[in-house]
C-alpha cells in the first residue's frame, strides 16, 4: 500500500509472453505467477479461512468441555446466537466495546492531528527530537509497555500517585488504580492512546508534507487567516488519509486484547470487558466454546463492515489494485 510511490507507468509486462516462442516455454511462463502466489494462498486458506469456517461451524454446535475432550458435537442451529443475543450481558459488552473504541479513536486521531500539525511547524532539530521519541514509543513492545504502565500506576511507589499527591490531590496517597473499574478503564485508554498516537501522527505528518509550501504561501498572500487556511486547505488535503487512519485505528482498538487481558483480565467487575476479552473469558473460564464462537462471529461481522469502508477508501485513493 504505497501511498506515496508514484503511479506505476502503464506498460505491459506481459508483452514478452505474447512474443512467438517455443510452446513449452510459453506455458511455463504463464504458470509462473501462480506458482509464486501459491504459498501465500495456501497459507491464507489453511491458517485464516479454515479457522474462520471452523469458528462458524462451532457457533452452530453445542460445544463445551465434554465435546472438547470426547468430540462428537451436535448441531443446534441458532441456539447459541439466541442465547447470546437475548442475555443482557452480551449487550453490555457490545456497548462497552463501542464506548472503548470511540473514546480511544477520538483521542488518538485528535492528538495525532495536533502532533502532526506541530511537527510541520517545528524547526529541524526539535522535529527530529520529537520524531525519535514517537518512534521509540511506537517500537516499545506491547507487553513491555503494559508492564511499564503497571509500574507507573502502582499503588505503592508508583510515580503517578506521587505526582498527584504533590499536586495536592492527597486522596491519591497509595491509591490502587487497578481495583476500580473506571480507573482501570482510564489507564487502559491512556496506554492504548500512548501506543497508537505515534503511528497516526507520523502518517498524518507524512501526508502534510506532500502539500507544496507554495500553496500556503499564495493563500497567505491572498490574505487568508490561519484558521481559514487550516479549514480550506489542510482539512481537504488530509481527508483521504484521515479516512484511512480512522478505519485502521477503529479496527486495531476494537480488536485490542493483550493490554486489557494482561492488566485486568476484563475486570474489575467487568469494567474493561470488551468483545475480544469477553469471548476469551467465556471460552477459558466457562468452557462455552460454542458461545465464544458465536460472539467471535459477530465480532468478525462487525469488523467486516469497518474493513469494507477502509478498503473502499484505500482503493479510491490508490486508484488501482
Amino acid at each position, binding site marked *: 500500500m504505497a501511498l506515496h510511490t508514484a503511479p506505476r507507468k502503464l506498460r505491459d509486462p506481459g508483452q514478452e509472453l505474447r512474443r512467438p516462442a517455443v510452446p513449452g516455454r510459453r506455458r511455463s511462463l504463464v504458470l509462473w505467477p501462480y506458482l509464486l502466489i501459491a504459498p501465500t494462498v495456501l*497459507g491464507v486458506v489453511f491458517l485464516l479461512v479454515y479457522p474462520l469456517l471452523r469458528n462458524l461451524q462451532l457457533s452452530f454446535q453445542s460445544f463445551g468441555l465434554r465435546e472438547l475432550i470426547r468430540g462428537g458435537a451436535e448441531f443446534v442451529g441458532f441456539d447459541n446466537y439466541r442465547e447470546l443475543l437475548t442475555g443482557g450481558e452480551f449487550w453490555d459488552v457490545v456497548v462497552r466495546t463501542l464506548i472503548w473504541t470511540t473514546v480511544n479513536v477520538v483521542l488518538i486521531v485528535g492528538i495525532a492531528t495536533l502532533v502532526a500539525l506541530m511537527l510541520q511547524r517545528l524547526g529541524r532539530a526539535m522535529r527530529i527530537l520529537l520524531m525519535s521519541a514517537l518512534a521509540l514509543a511506537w517500537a516499545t513492545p506491547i507487553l513491555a509497555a503494559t508492564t511499564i504502565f503497571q509500574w507507573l500506576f502502582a499503588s505503592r511507589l508508583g510515580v503517578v500517585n506521587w505526582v498527584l499527591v504533590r499536586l495536592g490531590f492527597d486522596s491519591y496517597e497509595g491509591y490502587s488504580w487497578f481495583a476500580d473499574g473506571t480507573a482501570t478503564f482510564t489507564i487502559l485508554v491512556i496506554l492504548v492512546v500512548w501506543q497508537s498516537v505515534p503511528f497516526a501522527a507520523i502518517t498524518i505528518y507524512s501526508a502534510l508534507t506532500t502539500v507544496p509550501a507554495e500553496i500556503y504561501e499564495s493563500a497567505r498572500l491572498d490574505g487568508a487567516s490561519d484558521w481559514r487556511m487550516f479549514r480550506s486547505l489542510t482539512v481537504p488535503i488530509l481527508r483521504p488519509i484521515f479516512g484511512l487512519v480512522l478505519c485502521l485505528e477503529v479496527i486495531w482498538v476494537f480488536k485490542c486484547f493483550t493490554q486489557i487481558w*494482561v492488566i485486568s483480565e476484563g475486570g474489575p467487575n467487568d469494567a474493561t470487558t470488551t468483545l475480544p476479552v469477553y469471548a476469551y473469558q467465556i471460552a477459558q473460564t466457562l468452557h462455552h466454546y460454542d458461545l465464544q464462537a458465536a460472539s467471535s462471529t459477530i465480532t468478525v461481522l462487525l469488523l467486516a463492515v469497518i474493513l469494507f469502508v477502509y478498503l473502499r477508501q484505500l482503493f479510491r485513493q490508490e486508484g488501482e489494485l
Partner: protein
Amino acid sequence: MKARNAVRRGSLNLAALAVFAVTIFPVYWMASTAFKPTRDINADTPVFVPTRLTLEHFRTAIGADGFGTFWRNSLLVTVVAVVLALLVALGAAFAVARLQFRGRRGFVLMVFIAQMAPWEAMLIPVYIIARDTDMLDRLAMLTLLYFIFTLPFTIITLRGFLAAVPVELEEAAQVDGCTRLSAFRRVTFPLLAPGLLATSLFGFITAWNEFAFANMLIVKNQDDRILPVWLSSFSNTFGTDWGATMAASTLFALPVLILFLVLQRRVTTGFVSGSVKG
C-alpha cells in the same frame, strides 16, 4: 509583529517539549528503574535522575527460571517466521508487481483483507485445530501463525518497494543476456535490500509482540513458552520487584529498539506504506 512571532515560536517549542516528555517518559522510566539500585526504587520521593547505577536487576532477571530459554524461543520463533514470510512474500510481490495474470486483483484484495484479519477472534478455533493436528505445545505452530500474521503486510510493502524499482533496469540486464531470474537476483534484489530490511523490522515487531496465541497454544510444555507470556506472569516470578521486572522488560524491548536504531532512516517511509501497528 516580531515579538509576537517569537512568543509563538517559544510556546510552540514548549508544547513540543511537553509532548516529547510525555512520549518518552514511560520508556525512560523503564530503563532508569532497571538500572537504579533497589534503595532508589523504594525511595519515598522517586529518584528521577539516578546517580548510582547497578546491573543487579539484570542479573536477577537473567538468572530467573527459564528467562534465557524463553528469550531464545521468542527470538527463534520470530526470526524463522519473519524470514519465511520474506521469502514467500518476495515471490508473491514479484508476481503482483511485475507479472500480468488472471486473478491478480483478487489476490491483492485477499492480501489486504488478510492483513486486517481479526485474529483475536479466532483463538479458540485455532486452539482446537492445533489440538486436532497434534500441534499444541509446539513452537512450530506459533512459527506458522506468526508467519501468516506478518505475511500480508510484507507482501504489500515489498510490492510498494518493487514498484519503485524501474522495470527497465531488469530489461536491460535481460538484453545483456541475463535470464529473467538472474536479472531479478542481480539487479532488482540489491536495490530492494533496504526495503527488505524495513519490512522485516515490521514483521519482527509484530511477531515479537504477539501474546494471545502464545498464551493459548503453549500450555503444558512450559519450556516452550515464549517471553511475552513469561513477562505477563512476572508478578508470580518477582512479586513486586519492580527493578527486576523493568530489567526484564528492557531486555524484552531491546532487540526491537536495536533493530529500530539500525534501520531508523528507512522506518518512516515504511511506516506509511505498510500501515503496520506495533
